[in-house]
């Protein structure tokens, strides 16, 4: 069963149709690259998958859950790395991750492993407000990974990352299928992203215009 099933999905931001009839399926363990110009609807598509915004019409299912009826249920199984970190300025890196971990009702020892993996171990006691832009991007990534999501949604994940950060991001994306994780990423860093993606679709003017490039 596809993790994401969109048929003729229209999504309005105010009265503007940010998505104007999207047909898209994301299969388990896909690494799907969304590419397209600014304002094409990539971010809206990711936010819709995450259940943060409602669809207007069409058919939209994530993990089999109809987004018209329930936008909350699927969130336990996915994570989104957006343009912002979704973290609190006055909490430390560790406190932010602990809050996400506890709020997501998870158990286990995921935090230290994620800190290690994202290279944030030495910054665990540093407040979010005191992190550099690149460190914040890593924290956003860590904040998503700490939930051990089945579906990882990444919106411009390369932005602001240095070489080390990019290597870390690439390791996370490339090892996702072997960890049972499906990835959907929107990026303008096409050369880098195409090395990682198993499928690529082009988004333009709120629709999917090209699904041809598969198994890159």
């Amino acid at each position, binding site marked *: 069963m596809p993790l994401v099933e969109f048929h003729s999905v229209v999504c309005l931001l105010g009265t503007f149709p940010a998505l104007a009839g999207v047909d898209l399926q994301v299969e388990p363990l896909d690494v799907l690259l969304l590419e397209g110009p600014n304002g094409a609807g990539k971010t809206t598509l990711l936010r819709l998958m995450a259940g943060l915004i*409602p669809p207007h019409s069409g058919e939209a299912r994530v993990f089999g859950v109809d987004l018209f009826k329930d936008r909350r249920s699927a969130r336990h199984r996915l994570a989104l790395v957006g343009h912002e970190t*979704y*973290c609190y300025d006055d909490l430390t890196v560790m406190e932010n991750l602990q809050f996400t971990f506890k709020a*997501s009702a998870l158990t286990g020892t995921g935090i230290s492993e994620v800190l290690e993996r994202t290279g944030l171990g030495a910054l665990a006691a540093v407040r979010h407000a005191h992190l550099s832009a690149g460190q914040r991007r890593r924290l956003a990534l860590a904040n998503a990974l700490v939930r051990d999501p089945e579906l990882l949604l990444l919106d411009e994940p390369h932005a602001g990352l240095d070489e080390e950060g990019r290597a870390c991001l690439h390791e996370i994306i490339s090892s996702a299928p072997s960890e049972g994780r499906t990835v959907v990423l929107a990026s303008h860093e096409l050369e880098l992203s195409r090395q990682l993606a198993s499928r690529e679709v082009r988004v333009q003017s709120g629709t999917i215009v090209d699904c041809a490039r598969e198994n890159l």
Partner: protein
Amino acid sequence: MRLWREASLVAGKDLRIEARSRIALGQILPFGIIVVILFAFALDPDSGLLTRVAPGLFWVTVLLAALLAVGRAFAVEEKSNARDGLRLTGLDGSAVFLGKMAAIAAELLFLEILLGTAVVILYGVEVNGLLVLLAAAPAATLGIASTGTLYGVLAAGLRSRETLLPLLLLPVLAPVLLGATRAFEGGLEGAPSDAWPWVGLLWIFATFYTAFGVLAFGTLWEND
């Protein structure tokens, strides 16, 4: 059980942020103290006017401070779009409401203790019915916190939220101001027995808005 666990997690997070940022301690509390002192200067202490109006002044000051606390509770969610992060965790909207309400109530109770002490010292009022005060203050505080949390999420995300919040909230809180003032009049210089109906009214208001918030907050929280 899960609801309370999630609510305590949100409340703990908000209180930790406030303790760390010191906005409540460094700005809201001094604001309240300054208002109390200004009233003491503005009104003639010798005429006994201050002791008569002390309950009203106290609760007006608490209301004004509550506006700051409510605004702050939702402002922390706007920075770095933490609100979306909170929504993505899948936390129940009712738990977020109860958590935020509890944190605001805790901050206000702390403020009331210090402000109350200042009022007793500066205005020279006597406490006749401590039990009335101890029953009325938590009820009024819960009423303010629950209503503030509900209207705070309505105003959050709007460009004009700083001006809209007082316009929305203050008229709704008029019964709390009235009830709390009357209850405190009885508990301070008046007859404590006269205060109990007002205490009852305050608890009814707090219960109604808490229940309403638990039911309605989730929808408002999801639809920004």
